[in-house]
C-alpha cells in the first residue's frame, strides 16, 4: 500500500504523540517554574507513544507520505527500541546529579527530539528522509553533549562531535548524490530496480557506497569513524551517554540494514540476500575487514582506560564490530542476530551506565579509583548489578550478552567465516580483561580510608533491578525475544 499525505496521518500516531509531547513541553517550559514535572510528562509521552507503536502491530506493511516513510515490522521494532531507550534515559536523568545543573526544560525537549529523529532513521524509505532523520539526531546530540554549563570537557566534546559529525554527514550525502545520479532516484525501490539492471559505473558505485557506509558507520562508531565516541561519551552528561550508546547504535543498525538490504539487495532462496550490481566478493571482504578492525581496535584501546565512561565507549566500539558481523553473512539469520544483539545491548549497556551514574552521583567521579571496594562501601547491590552487566557485555553465560554473541557467531559460522569467528572469540577474551578490572576494583580491592560510603540513588534502584533481572532472564530463556526479532524482519519490499 502506498498512502498520500493526509491518509498517512492515520497510521502515524506514535510520531504524532511524540511530536505533541515535544510541543507541549516546549510551551510548558515557558510557563511552568517546576521543571522536574517535565520529566514525568516526557516519560508519560514516551509510554503513550510506546503503546501507540505496539498498537500498530498487525497493520499491513505500508508506505506513508508518498513513499517517504515505511511502516513495517522492522521500523516498529526500532521504534520500540528507541522508546525503551528514551524511557530508560529519562528515568536515569531524574536521578542524575549532573542533569540537575542543566536547563531541565530544554534538556528533555532536545532528548525527545533526538528520539524523534531516530524514528525516521529506522523508517526512512528514501535517501532524503534518511538524511533528514540522521541530521536531526546529530544536531540534537551535539546540543545535548555540550549542555553541561561551565564544563570544559562537555564543550570540548561537543565541538569534536560537531566536526567529526559534519565531515561524516558531508561524506555520506556526497555518496548519496552519486547514487542519485546513477540510479536516477532517491527512492529505495527505484534504486533497487536500477541496481538490478546493473546501472552505473561499478567503481563509482563502489565508492559511493563506501561514502554512505562512512556516514552510517559513524553513527554506530565503526573504526575508523569512531574517533568522536570516546570523547563524547566522557564529556556528555551520563544519562545522555547511556542513551547515545544504545539508541544511536540501534538507529545506525536500522538505517544501515534498511539501506543495504531492501534498497540494494535482493532476497533469494531460504532467506539469503545478495547485493545487486555490487561486486559482492569485495563487499563481503570489506565488511569482514571493517568488523575485525573495529572490534580489535575498540578492545585494545579499552585495555588502558582509567575512566569508566571512556572504557565503556571503547567497549561500545568493540560491540559495534560484533554487531557488524551479522551484516557480513547476507542472510536473515545474521540480521536476526543483529536485532537480538541490539536489544540485549540496550539492556546491559544502559544498566552499566546507570551504575556509572549512581557512583558519579555519590562521589562526583568517573575514574576507576571511585569504584574501589564499591561492594563493601554500602553499595553492594549496584556493584553486583554492575558485575552482571559486565559479565553480560563480556558474553558469559547465563547472561543475555552470551546469547547475543552466540547468535552472531552462529550466523557467521553458518556462513563459514571461521577466521572472523575466531577473531571475534579472541576479542571476547581480551575484553574480559578490562571489564574484569572494574569487577576486581569493586570486589577484590579494599576501600582506601578516604573512600567514603556510597549512597545509592534511590530513584534509580527499580530501573537497575529490572535491567539486571532482564539480563539474567534473557540469558536463560531467550525464546520470546528471538521470536520477536524474527517477526521484526519483515521489510516493506519494493
Amino acid at each position, binding site marked *: 500500500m502506498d498512502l498520500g499525505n493526509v491518509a498517512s496521518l492515520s497510521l502515524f500516531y506514535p510520531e504524532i504523540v511524540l511530536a505533541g509531547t515535544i510541543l507541549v513541553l516546549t510551551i510548558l517550559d515557558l510557563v511552568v517554574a517546576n521543571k522536574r514535572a517535565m520529566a514525568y510528562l516526557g516519560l508519560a509521552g514516551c509510554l503513550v507513544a510506546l503503546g501507540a507503536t505496539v498498537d500498530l502491530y498487525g497493520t499491513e506493511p505500508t508506505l506513508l507520505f508518498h513513499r517517504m516513510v515505511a511502516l513495517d515490522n522492522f521500523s516498529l521494532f526500532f521504534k520500540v527500541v528507541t522508546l525503551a531507550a528514551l524511557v530508560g534515559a529519562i528515568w536515569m536523568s531524574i536521578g542524575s546529579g549532573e542533569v540537575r545543573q542543566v536547563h531541565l526544560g530544554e534538556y528533555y525537549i532536545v532528548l525527545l527530539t533526538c528520539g524523534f529523529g531516530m524514528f525516521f532513521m529506522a523508517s526512512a524509505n528514501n535517501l532524503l528522509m534518511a538524511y533528514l532523520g540522521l541530521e536531526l539526531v546529530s544536531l540534537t546530540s551535539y546540543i545535548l553533549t555540550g549542555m553541561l554549563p561551565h564544563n570544559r570537557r562537555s564543550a570540548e566534546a561537543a*565541538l569534536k562531535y560537531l*566536526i567529526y559529525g559534519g565531515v561524516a554527514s558531508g561524506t555520506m550525502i556526497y555518496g548519496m548524490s552519486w547514487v542519485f545520479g546513477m540510479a536516477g532516484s532517491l527512492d529505495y525501490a527505484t534504486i533497487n530496480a536500477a541496481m538490478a539492471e546493473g546501472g552505473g559505473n561499478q567503481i563509482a558505485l563502489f565508492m559511493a557506497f563506501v561514502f554512505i557506509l562512512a556516514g552510517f558507520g559513524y553513527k554506530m562508531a565503526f573504526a575508523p569513524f569512531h574517533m568522536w565516541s570516546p570523547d563524547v561519551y566522557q564529556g556528555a552528561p551520563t544519562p545522555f551517554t547511556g542513551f547515545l550508546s544504545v539508541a544511536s547504535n540501534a538507529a545506525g543498525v536500522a538505517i544501515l540494514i534498511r539501506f543495504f538490504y531492501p534498497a540494494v539487495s535482493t532476497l533469494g532462496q531460504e532467506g539469503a540476500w545478495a547485493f545487486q550490481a555490487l561486486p559482492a566478493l569485495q563487499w563481503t571482504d570489506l565488511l569482514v575487514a571493517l568488523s575485525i578492525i573495529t572490534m580489535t581496535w575498540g578492545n585494545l584501546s579499552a585495555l588502558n582506560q582509567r575512566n569508566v565512561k571512556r572504557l565503556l565507549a571503547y567497549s561500545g566500539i568493540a560491540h559495534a564490530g560484533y554487531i557488524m558481523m551479522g551484516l557480513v553473512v547476507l542472510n536473515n539469520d545474521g540480521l536476526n542476530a543483529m536485532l537480538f544483539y541490539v536489544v540485549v545491548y540496550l539492556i546491559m549497556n544502559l544498566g552499566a551506565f546507570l551504575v556509572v551514574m549512581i557512583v558519579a552521583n555519590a562521589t562526583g567521579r568517573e575514574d576507576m579509583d571511585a569504584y574501589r571496594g564499591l561492594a563493601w562501601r554500602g553499595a553492594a547491590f549496584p556493584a553486583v548489578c554492575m558485575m552482571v552487566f559486565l559479565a553480560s557485555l563480556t558474553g558469559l553465560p547465563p547472561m543475555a550478552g552470551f546469547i547475543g554473541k552466540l547468535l552472531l557467531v552462529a550466523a557467521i559460522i553458518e556462513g563459514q567465516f571461521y577466521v572472523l569467528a575466531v577473531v571475534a572469540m579472541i576479542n571476547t577474551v581480551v575484553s574480559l580483561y578490562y571489564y574484569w578490572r572494574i569487577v576486581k576494583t569493586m570486589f577484590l580491592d579494599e576501600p582506601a580510608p578516604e573512600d567514603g560510603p556510597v549512597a545509592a540513588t534511590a530513584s534509580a534502584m527499580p530501573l537497575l533491578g529490572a535491567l539486571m533481572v532482564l539480563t539474567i532472564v534473557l540469558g536463560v530463556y531467550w525464546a520470546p525475544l528471538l521470536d520477536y526479532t524474527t517477526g521484526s524482519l519483515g521489510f516493506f519490499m519494493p
Partner: protein
Amino acid sequence: MLTEALTTSALLFVIGTFGVLVRRNAIIMFLCIELQLNAVNLALVAFSRYVGVEGQVFVFFVMTVAAAEAAVGLAIIISIFRHYRTVNVDNFNLLKW
C-alpha cells in the same frame, strides 16, 4: 556539461575534506564542512538536470540542514571560546586516550 559540473564538485569536496584535516582553527574547519556540503549541492543540481527534479529538492533540504548545523555549531564554538579564549583545536586537550 555534466562532466565539468561533477569535476568541479569533486574538487570542491576534496578541498573541503583536505581543509578539515589540515586546518586547526575551528571556524575554518567548520567552513570547510560547509564547502563539502556545497560540493554535494552542486553534484545534486547537475545530476538533476539529467535524471529528475528530486535532486533539486534535496538541495533545499541540505541548505536548511546546513543552516541549522551552523546555528548549533557556532553556539558550541562560542561556548568553548568562553572556556579557552581560543578556537584553535590543538588547545582542546582535556579529552584524550
